[in-house]
């Protein structure tokens, strides 16, 4: 082998060994890893989550940190891809020595990352992924959720629907859900729950548009031709917007009472104005209705988040992230160490004080029992975009989530 070749191979070896020579970072900061989505279709939700974490960390660090140590946030882009997500979380935990992982938008990435955090024995706090599987069937000791899940959302909107519309106007049900896991779960869940509320109900039509559908006219025509009077759908974001824009002139909202468990997220609605076609009167959720809570702390935080993100709305994910960081702070200070096992023991079963009352961090599934406010979409004084005007707080918050017995059964299967 020529001398040049040998030199080349040797230099290659050295270059690859260089990373090993980087010394471990100073033990001082407590590191929070934030796998988030900054690219692709869901990236607008990613910004919101990061803002909450940043604000909380700034506040805490300005007051001396936790146990004298500053908090440090490392953000990573998972590109909505489980492969990249797991790789980034591995890097955060193994190389960056992250103590906690807070984040993850998509349920698919969440499930993959959750598996890894379980084996790595690091706390993962989910802030926006809502599939119930994450904390139920596939739940485990190390995963927590600081936002509502789909089941709670379904219960909340159906509760409001049953209160404001008479049963005989909501007994012929049409379902419209995207043809993937989120849609299928929404269908199963809402059908079971509505049957309990309105036993005379029957399913008239169930439509399954594929992911990425933008042309809603055929679906709307089919719905209009049916004899349904209640439409339950789980569309969100851009898909919901395109659907609503096409459905309004075709008269869908005159024919149907509409229940939408995921629509009207702030990231999408904030671009609408009074002149835009908006489906007013649909029943949807408001994850953190700071505009109607009449809670000064909520308003203050919303202002902070808006200022930090430069947007005209404050994302509920930001609030979830904010709460998560403060919970960890409280736990670390209580057990006087950054000790994962002790922190988990401390947090389980704890009541967290929030601007929406006190929330129980349930032991059986580590789900923060987040109250899902729901109500009808409309315009309010002082806000240019449509919001849930009179958000209704569920009477029994724990009842909107699946019970611990049901979860035990699911896990045993």
């Amino acid at each position, binding site marked *: 082998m020529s001398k040049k070749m040998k030199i080349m191979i040797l230099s290659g070896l050295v270059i690859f060994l260089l990373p090993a020579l980087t010394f471990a970072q100073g033990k001082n900061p407590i590191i929070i890893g934030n796998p988030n989505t*900054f*690219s*692709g*279709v869901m*990236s*607008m939700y*990613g*910004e919101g989550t990061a803002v909450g974490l940043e604000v909380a960390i700034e506040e805490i660090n300005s007051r001396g940190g936790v146990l004298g140590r500053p908090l440090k946030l490392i953000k990573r882009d998972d590109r909505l891809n489980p492969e990249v997500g797991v790789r980034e979380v591995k890097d955060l935990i193994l190389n960056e020595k992250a103590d906690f992982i807070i984040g993850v938008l998509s349920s698919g990435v969440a499930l993959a990352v959750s598996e890894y955090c379980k084996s790595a024995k690091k706390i993962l706090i989910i802030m926006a992924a809502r599939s119930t599987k994450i904390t139920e069937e596939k739940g485990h000791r190390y995963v927590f959720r600081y936002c509502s899940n789909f089941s709670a959302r379904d219960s909340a909107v159906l509760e409001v629907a049953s209160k404001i519309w008479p049963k005989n106007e909501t007994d012929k049900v049409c379902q419209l859900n995207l*043809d993937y896991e989120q849609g299928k779960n929404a269908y199963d869940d809402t059908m079971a729950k509505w049957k309990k509320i309105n036993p005379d109900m029957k399913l008239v039509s169930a*439509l*399954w*548009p*594929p992911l*990425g559908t*933008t*042309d809603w*006219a*055929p*679906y709307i*025509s*089919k719905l*209009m*031709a049916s004899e349904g009077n209640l439409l339950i759908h789980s569309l969100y*974001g*851009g*898909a919901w*917007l*395109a659907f609503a*824009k*096409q459905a309004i*002139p*075709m*008269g869908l909202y005159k024919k149907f009472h509409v229940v939408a468990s995921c629509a009207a997220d702030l*990231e*999408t609605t*904030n*671009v*609408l104005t009074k*002149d*835009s*076609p908006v489906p007013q009167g649909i029943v949807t959720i408001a994850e953190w209705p700071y505009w109607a809570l009449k809670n000064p702390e909520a308003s203050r935080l919303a202002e902070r988040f808006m200022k930090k993100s430069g947007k005209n709305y404050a994302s509920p994910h930001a609030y979830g992230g904010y709460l998560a960081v403060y919970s960890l702070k409280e736990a670390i200070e209580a057990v006087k160490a950054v000790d994962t096992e002790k922190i988990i023991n401390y947090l389980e079963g704890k009541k967290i004080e929030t601007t929406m009352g006190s929330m129980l961090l349930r032991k059986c599934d580590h789900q923060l029992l987040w109250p899902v406010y729901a109500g009808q979409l409309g315009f309010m004084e002082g806000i240019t975009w449509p919001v849930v005007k009179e958000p209704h707080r569920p009477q029994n918050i724990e009842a909107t989530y699946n019970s611990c017995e049901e979860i035990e059964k699911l896990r045993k299967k």
Partner: protein
Amino acid sequence: MNLQLAFMQLLNGLGSGMIIFLVAVGLSIIFGTLKVLNLAHAAFYMLGAYLCYWVSHTVLSNISGNFWITLLLAPIITAIFGGALERLIIRRIYGLNIMYQFILTFGISLVIADSVKFLWGREVKNMAIPYPFDGSIFVMGANLLKYQLFLYIMGVSIYIGLLLLLHKTKLGKLIRAVTHNQEMASALGINVPSVYTGIFMLGSWLAGIAGIVAAPVTSITLGMDHVVLIQCFVVVVIGGMGSLSGAFLGSIIMGLINSFGIIFLPELALVFAFLLMAIILIIRPFGLMGESEEAKEKF
């Protein structure tokens, strides 16, 4: 399923077919003449949609009828951009192994997509359905979006316009000559590189138009190019690469599959499209209306 619903789905399917046609025809033309598989085509479509939003919300925001002005002006931007791209980059890969074309245009689509993210951010953009096509009309007892009428008009006009261009004008003759036999055309004194640039610009212009036309009835969001690209490919294969009428027919078929599929076999609609693509490639690779002599040379 009753007749009224079937008729509505027919009308809906034709409408969505028209949008697909507007995107696919540019791809087909570019492939037919330049023999380049332009994966960045859908990115131009996305660019067109974002430009539509931007121009009508900022530059022309207080002018009524801004959508129509945008429709006239914005595709020129995509055309110019396409021309520049062709001159600087695309012309260097003519005749190369198809893999290079695939991966190069893929790279270009990444650059365009991220540039869109950089320029306009991540949030969904909203483009209202423009007057006078907002609202609906009552047809056979059901509501049809008025905008569908606009889609029919656009789709058919572009189709007829392109047919006339190709078969009745001198420019069309040049294009057909260059497509048929590039060496001979060059030997006859035709400035082939310029014709190539022109064709790429035409394709980009069409993609821009498609984006603007689609903007009011679709979600203007990052990643909107991916779905469209796959649909384009299927259409162009079914109709025949390089065939204008093939693209028109293929798009209508695609639109009708989408609108009728939801009634009969919703889950299978997507698989069906790819199966159809595979079947056509196996049985009749030059598509329903492609030119078989060309294909004979190919395989």
